[in-house]
Every structure is written in C-alpha cells, then in structure tokens.
C-alpha cells in the first residue's frame, strides 16, 4: 500500500526544534574531543621520549583546564536552549491536541467499520496531516474492502461452473471406470475363451489329421473293392454268356421236346387206331391187342416224358430268363457300384485333401490364437493400467472438487469477513481482475484519482 509521506513530515516538524539544540551542542563537544586527543598524544610522546616528560605534563595541565572551561560553557548553553524549546512545544502541543481530539470524534464511526466517514482538514499543521493520512487510509480501505468483496463474488461465481463441470467430469470418470472395468472383465473372459479356443484348435488339428489318415485308408480300401467289383462284373459277364448258352440249349431242347410230343401224339393216335382195329376187325387177336397196348404205353410214356421235359425245359427257360434278368441287374448294380466307387474314391481324395488343408489351417489358427491370446493379455494389463489411471483421475477430480469447495468456502469467508464494512455508494471498479502488476498499478492510479476527486 502506497503511503504519501504525510506521517514522516509530521515527525520532521516535531524533531525540528531538537535539531537546533543539537547544533548548539555540537561545537563545544568537538573542542573537548580535540583536547582529549591532544592530551593522549602528549602522554604517548612523554612515555616514548623521557626527556619530554616535564613539558608534556605542563601541556597536559593546560589542555585539561581548557577542557573543563569548555565543558562548563557547553552545559550552560544547552540548558538555555532546552528551556526555550520546551515552552514553544507546550504551546503548540495544546493546540494540536485539541485538533486531534476533534479529529478523533469525527473518525469515531470508523471504529464500527463505517468507511463512509471523511475527516475534515483542520488548520493545525500536525492534525491536518493526520486527517489527510486518515482520509487516505480510509480511501485505501474502501478500495481494499471493495476488492475483497468483488474478489469473493468473482471467486464464488468462477468456482461454481468448474465445480459443476467437475461433478459431471467425476460422473463421466465413474462411468468410464465402470466401462473400463467391464471391458477388462470381458478381456479376461476373452483371454480364457482364447485359451479354450487354442486347446480346441489343437484338438481339432489332431482330429483333422486323423480324418486325413482314415480317408486315405478308406480310399485304398475302395481301390481294392473296385478291383473285386471288376472281377465280379467279369464273372457276371461269364455267367451271362453261360446262361445265354443254356437258354439256347433249352430252346433247342424245347424244339426236340416238341418233336417228341409230336411223336407221342402220333404214337397215341397209332395206339388208338390199333385199338380200333382190334376192336372192330381183329377181335380176339391177342398179339395184336398186346402190341396195341405196348404202343399205347409207349405213347403214354412218350407223352408223359415230353410233358415233363416240356415242363422242365419251360422251368429252365424261365430260370434262364430270371437268371439273365438277375445278371443284368447285377451288371447294372455293379456299374452303379463302379460309379459310386469312383465318386466315393474321388470324394475320399477330396476329403483327404480337405482334411490336410484343414489340418494346416487349424494349425495356423492355433498359432494365431496363441498370438491373439498374448495380445489380449497385454491389452488386459493395459486396461488394468488404464483403470488405475482412471481411478487416479477420479481421485484427482475428487480432490480438485474438494479444493474448489474449500476455495468457495474461503471466498465466502472472505466476503463475510468484510461484510461488516459499510462502503459509500460509488460506481463499481473495473470488473476485470488485474492479472499483471502494470494493469494493477494503472487500476490503482485510476481508483486513486477517483478517490482524490471524491475528496
């Protein structure tokens, strides 16, 4: 706080009368000091040069005498000067005391914090200086209290928005921490799942390899079956030719049977006619009758035989037809089996290739799964670090919020501490808070000029 030098000026006035007395006392003192130095020099000389003892003693005596005379003169001068000063000062002090009492009466409300009071300037020099000083001090106090109130309000209003934002930030930090925690848990679960997947892929790799081996074995087995099926088809072809030959033979036999049947029919007719001849013309001819019976039996046997043969040949022919149909069906089945074996063999080769490829892919997958597991673990550890950092942010935000609360409390206390002061209704100072000494001094000078005008 700037002071304008009124108080030192008052002190100077009080000490001015004493300065004159000091000047009056200064000359005899110098004389006495000089005499004492000379006395000392003489004592040194007399001690150093024995021949000069007497002279020195004389001189010392003279010097001492002169010193005593000077000291007496000096004391009388000082007593006169002090008496004059005391009288003058008593007169002036009475007048100043009266002015100071009046000034104290005027400044009585100041003790209750009323900064609206102004001290009137008396005629007395010292009291006027005191009044000016007090007025200046009150002006400074007004400015200071006003600034306190303004700063308190500004701090209060400035802290409110960050506190709100800080609360939102805290909530967001909490949400973020929860999400990070959840993500970390998900990553932990993912790590476990990746480990399980890695184990499963290793198992699948083994199974794919086993499938490739079994498909290869099946392909070789199918190749052997194909050879056997080829032999079966060849044998079926042989059987077909045999049955065809049998069918042709049966047809020839059937023709022969037809001839036999014709013979039998003719023999039968012969037997009938012979019987008729025996009956009508040769009745009683035993030989002819026996011959007729033999022919008849022969015809019967021929007929029976031809009938049986025809039946058998018909059966053979039917069997041959059925066998041919069966062989043809067998051939068709064998052909179908060949096609199916070809398809199956091709499919098994595809299965073998696919299983081999699958085995390689699953191996790659297992390897990448392991890599991914490592990556996920690293991400998990970083998520844990982020979670810790988020917790730190939350704690920092909480501490910041507490600090802002404390700052707001301090601002309120600041305002309440100067709330008892009563300020005159003057326009508010510039709202902007000074941020640099230059601006502050400029603002101060403007305020001072305003206060001077007010004065």
């Amino acid at each position, binding site marked *: 706080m700037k002071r304008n030098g009124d108080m030192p000026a008052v002190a100077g006035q009080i000490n001015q009368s004493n300065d004159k007395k000091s000047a009056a006392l200064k000359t005899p003192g110098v004389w006495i000091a000089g005499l004492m130095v000379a006395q000392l020099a003489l004592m040194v000389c007399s001690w150093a040069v024995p021949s000069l003892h007497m002279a020195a003693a004389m001189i010392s005596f003279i010097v001492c005498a002169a010193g005593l005379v000077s000291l007496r003169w000096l004391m009388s001068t000082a007593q006169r000067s002090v008496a004059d000063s005391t009288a003058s000062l008593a007169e002036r002090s009475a007048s100043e005391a009266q002015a100071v009492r009046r000034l104290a009466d005027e400044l009585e409300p100041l003790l209750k914090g009323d900064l609206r009071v102004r001290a009137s300037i008396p005629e007395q020099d010292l009291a006027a200086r005191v009044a000016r000083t007090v007025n200046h001090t009150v002006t400074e106090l007004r400015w200071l209290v006003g600034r306190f109130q303004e700063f308190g309000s500004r701090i209060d209003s400035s802290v409110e928005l960050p506190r709100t934002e800080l609360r939102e930030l805290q909530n967001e930090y909490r949400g973020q921490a929860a999400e990070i925690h959840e993500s970390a848990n998900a990553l932990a679960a993912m790590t476990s799942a990746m480990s399980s997947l890695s184990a499963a892929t290793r198992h699948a790799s083994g199974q794919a390899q086993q499938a490739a081996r079994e498909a290869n074995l099946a392909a070789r087995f199918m190749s052997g079956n194909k050879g056997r099926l080829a032999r079966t088809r060849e044998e079926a072809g042989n059987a077909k030719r045999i049955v065809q030959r049998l069918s042709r033979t049966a047809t020839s036999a059937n023709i022969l049977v037809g001839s036999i049947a014709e013979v039998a029919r003719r023999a039968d007719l012969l037997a009938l006619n012979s019987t008729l001849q025996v009956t009508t013309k040769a009745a*009683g001819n035993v030989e002819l009758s026996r011959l007729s019976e033999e022919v*008849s039996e022969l015809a019967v046997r021929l007929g029976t035989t031809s009938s049986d043969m025809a039946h058998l040949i018909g059966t053979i022919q039917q069997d041959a037809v059925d066998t041919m149909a069966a062989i043809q069906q067998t051939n068709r089945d064998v052909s179908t089996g060949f096609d199916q074996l070809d398809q199956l063999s091709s499919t098994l080769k595809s299965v073998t290739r696919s299983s081999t490829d699958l085995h390689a892919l699953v191996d790659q997958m297992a390897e990448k799964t392991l890599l991914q597991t490592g990556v996920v673990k690293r991400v998990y550890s970083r998520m844990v670090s982020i979670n810790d950092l988020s917790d730190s942010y939350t704690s920092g935000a909480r501490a910041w919020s507490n600090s802002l609360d404390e700052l707001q409390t301090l601002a309120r206390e600041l305002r309440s501490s100067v709330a008892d002061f009563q300020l005159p209704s003057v326009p508010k100072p510039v709202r902007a808070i000074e941020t640099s000494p230059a601006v502050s001094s400029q603002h101060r000078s403007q305020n001072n000029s305003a206060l001077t005008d007010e004065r």
Partner: protein
Amino acid sequence: MTDPVERAGANSGMTSPSFLLFEVAGIPLATPAAQVDHVHDTLLTEPVEGTLPWFSGLAVADGKLLPITDLGELLGKPVAGGYTLQLNRDFGVAGIRVEKVMGLSKQPVTRSAPADALPDVLAAGVDDRCIAFRGRIHYLLDLQALLQSPQLLGIADEA
C-alpha cells in the same frame, strides 16, 4: 389228344363194348368204337363245288375216296384242324370231322334225358343213352343214323 389212363383202361379187356369219346362245337359226344375204323389227324381234303359248306369235300384214305362232313360247320361252329373219324365200311363210306378226340372208354352206358341244348341236327343220331366221363355227360351219337338222315344226304348247294 386222348386220356392215357382212360384209354389204358379201355384196352384192358375186350368183353364190354368200348366207346370213342370226342367233342364237337363244345358238345361232348361218344360213339361206339365199332363204328369207327380209323382216326386221322391230317387228311388232305379236296373241296367239291356246288356242295354245302359243311361238306368239306373228298379225301383219299387207304386208297379210296372218302367224303368228309364237317360236323362243327354243320353245328354252326367250324374249327380249323381237328380230327377226322373214318367210319367203318360196314356202316358206310364217310368221314366225320370233329374238334377233339378224348380216346376210348369202357364206362357203362347210362340213360339221361336229352339235353335241351343239343341242336336239332344231332337229333337223328342221339337218344337218351350217355356215358359219364370226368363230370361230363357224353351223349351217344349214332354216326350211321346221323349220316343217313335226310338233312345230311342232300349235300348239293341249291342256293
């Protein structure tokens, strides 16, 4: 053509008369074996112009001409093939074409009322005598009487 069992039985003895069983136009008939001299299965017949359709023509059997009457045609049911029964010379010179010949039988002759289904053409040679054979009734047909009936004597086709 014939039944071997029946025929064997038929030839087992000569004491009882035997009958030749045959079938014409689905009608089972029988005739005494003594009236039949021979049974032909194939007999080349030469048609004669100006005769009725049931008269097949003339054939040569045993070096002699044999007029052939188609009994199936006469009954309205002509059959291709069949057999020709050559009558004994003692009963006439004629041949009767029939559809089937079963053989000889010595089954006893029984009597039964003539069936109403028998055509009138056969009325001249059929009476109530018959032979039961395998569940069928074979009516005895007198071939000599049939051939001498006025209906078969006129063979000229006057139309």
